[in-house]
C-alpha cells in the first residue's frame, strides 16, 4: 500500500456524505485541479491508455486488420511458445542486451573507476562528444554504422591493414548470419557507452572523498577500493542505467529497420520489428497486438524486478 496515511478526522469540515476527500484549503476551488490536468489527461487517455486497452482486446483475436476477427483467447500469447519467429525475436533481444546494457555498463564502470580520482580539464567538451551518439537521430547513426561495416568501409580497411582481413565475413558484417546481430549490438554499445560513462563518472564524483581516503588509509588496493567504495556508491546510478538500457533494448527498432531489415533471413529480427512487420506486411494484426502487449508486460516485470533487486542489494 503506497497511499499516504489518511488522517482520521471525524470533523464535518472534511467529511462530506461519509466519504473522505483530501482536505482543501479554505477558499480554494476544489475542482480546479481537474481543470489543469484535464487537457493532458484527455489526450493521454485517448492516445495512450485507451489504445492500450484496445490493444489487449485486439490481441485476443485472430485478425487480419480487415475482415472481422475471430476470437482466439490467449492463442496469440500461446504463440510465444510455439512460434519460432517470436521466440527467436526475444532471444535476439536478449543477446542485444549484452551489448546495449551489460557491456556499456562494464566499460563505463571500469573507466569511471579509473577516471574518478583526477580532475579532467575540459571535461565539458569531452562530455559533449561522448553525448553525441545519444543525441543524434538513430537513423543517421545507424546509416553511419552501415557505412562503417561496408565492404570497403573503415572497419574492413583497418582489418586488412593489420593483416586480419581473413576475419571479414564474405557477406559483410551485416549480411552474415553469424555477425549481423553482434554487429548491430556493437552499434548499440557505441550508442550507449558514452551515456553510461558520463552518468557513472557523475556518480563517482558524488562519493565523498573521505571514503576513498579511509580506504587508502586502510591500505586498500585499487581493486579493493573499487569493490568497497566505488561500486556500492554507484548503486543508484547503476540501477538507472540498467533499467533504462534494458527497456531501451526491448524496444529496439530504428537501427534494425535501417541496418538489416531483420535479416539476413531472420537473424536480426526483434519484437518491435515483428510488430511492425505483422501489422503492415503480413496482416497478422492480432498477433502484432499481442507482441506489443507482451513487450509492455516484460518491460513492467524487468523494471520492477531490477528495482527490487537493487533495493535488496541496498539492504544487505
Amino acid at each position, binding site marked *: 500500500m503506497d497511499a499516504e496515511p489518511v488522517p482520521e478526522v471525524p470533523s464535518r469540515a472534511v467529511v462530506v456524505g461519509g466519504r473522505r476527500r483530501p482536505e482543501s484549503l479554505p477558499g480554494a476551488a476544489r475542482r480546479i485541479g481537474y481543470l489543469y490536468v484535464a487537457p493532458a489527461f484527455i489526450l493521454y487517455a485517448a492516445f495512450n491508455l485507451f489504445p492500450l486497452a484496445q490493444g489487449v482486446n485486439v490481441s485476443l483475436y485472430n485478425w487480419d486488420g480487415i475482415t472481422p476477427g475471430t476470437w482466439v483467447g490467449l492463442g496469440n500469447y500461446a504463440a510465444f511458445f510455439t512460434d519460432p519467429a517470436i521466440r527467436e525475436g526475444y532471444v535476439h533481444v536478449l543477446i542485444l542486451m549484452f551489448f546495449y546494457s551489460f557491456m556499456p555498463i562494464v566499460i563505463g564502470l571500469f573507466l569511471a573507476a579509473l577516471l574518478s580520482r583526477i580532475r579532467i580539464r575540459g571535461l565539458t567538451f569531452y562530455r*559533449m562528444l561522448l553525448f553525441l551518439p545519444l543525441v543524434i537521430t538513430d537513423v543517421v547513426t545507424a546509416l553511419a554504422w552501415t557505412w562503417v561495416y561496408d565492404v570497403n568501409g573503415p572497419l574492413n580497411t583497418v582489418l586488412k591493414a593489420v593483416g586480419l582481413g581473413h576475419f571479414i565475413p564474405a557477406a559483410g558484417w551485416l549480411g552474415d548470419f553469424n555477425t549481423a546481430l553482434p554487429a548491430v549490438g556493437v552499434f548499440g554499445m557505441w550508442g550507449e557507452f558514452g551515456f553510461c560513462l558520463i552518468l557513472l563518472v557523475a556518480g563517482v564524483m558524488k562519493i565523498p572523498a573521505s571514503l576513498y581516503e579511509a580506504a587508502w588509509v586502510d591500505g586498500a588496493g585499487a581493486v579493493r577500493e573499487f569493490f568497497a567504495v566505488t561500486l556500492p556508491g554507484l548503486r543508484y546510478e547503476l540501477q538507472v542505467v540498467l533499467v533504462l538500457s534494458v527497456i531501451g533494448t526491448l524496444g529496439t527498432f530504428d537501427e534494425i529497420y535501417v541496418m538489416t531489415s531483420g535479416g539476413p533471413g531472420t537473424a536480426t529480427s526483434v519484437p518491435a520489428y515483428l510488430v511492425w512487420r505483422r501489422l503492415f506486411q503480413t496482416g497478422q494484426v492480432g498477433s502484432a497486438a499481442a507482441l506489443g502487449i507482451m513487450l509492455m508486460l516484460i518491460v513492467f516485470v524487468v523494471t520492477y524486478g531490477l528495482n527490487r533487486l537493487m533495493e535488496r542489494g541496498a539492504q544487505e
Partner: protein
Amino acid sequence: MNTASRTQVTLNYVLIIVCSLVAVYPLVGVVLASLYPSGPASAPSGFALPPSFNWHNYVSAWEQGGFAASFTTSIIVAAVMVPASVGLSILGGFAFATMRFRGSKAIFYLFILGLIIPTEATIVPLYYDVRAMGLLDTYWALILLETSGELAFGIFWMRAAFLSAPRSLLEAARIDGASSWRTLWQILVPFARPAILTLTVLTFADSWNEFFLALVFTVNHMTAPAGLASFSGRYTTNIPLVSAGAVIVAVPILIVFIIFQRQFMRGMLTGAVKG
C-alpha cells in the same frame, strides 16, 4: 587527491580522449564520406580526405531525398507539438505539485505508467484509431501522438520542478490574492524557467528524431528521419549521397545540442536519475 602521479594524469587524458574519438569517429567519417564523388563506385575508406570536396552532393541529396518536404513536416510537427506538450505538462505538473484533489495520486500514477508503456503496445490499435479519425498521413497524426507520448515524462518533470519551489512562495502568492492561474504563470513558471527550457529542448529532440510513428502513420508527410530512411533505401549503393542526406538530417539537432548542451545533459542525466 594529491597522490595522483603524472602517469596517472596522462593515462586519464588518454582514456577520455580515446573514448571521445570512438564516440565521434563514425559521425566525422560520415561527413568525410559525404564529400566523396557521388556514385556507386565511390568507396570512402573513412581515413583519408576525399580527393575533391564534392559539396554538390548536399544539393543533390537535398533535392533527390525530398528533404524540403520532410523538413517542412518535421518543423511543422515540432512547432505545434513542442509548445503543446510542454504547455500541457506545465498545467498538469502544476496541479499535481500544488493541489490535492480527489484521485490526484491515482491519476498521477496513471501518467507515470506512461513512462514504461512502449509505443509498440499501443501502435496497433492506434493505427486503426487514427485511420478512423481520418488523420492517417496528416501532420495531426504525428502532432497528437507525439504530444501525448511526451506527456508522461513532461508532467513528471514539471511536477518535480514545481515541487522544488519553496512552499512559502506559493503561500505568499495565496496571501497576495493571486489566482492559481496567476500563481502558475507569474511566479512558478518564471521560477522553473531552467527546467522548462530543458524540457523544451528534450521534447524538440524527441520530436525531431521521431522515426517509428512517422513510419507507421505517414506516407506523403514523412519526417526528416523517415525521409532519410526512404532516401537511403533508394540509393543504397551511393554512399556519398546517402551520407550527405544523413548529415543534412543531423545538422538541426546538432545545432540545438551545441547551443543547449547544458540543458540537454542536465535533462538526460537528472531525468534519467529521477526516472
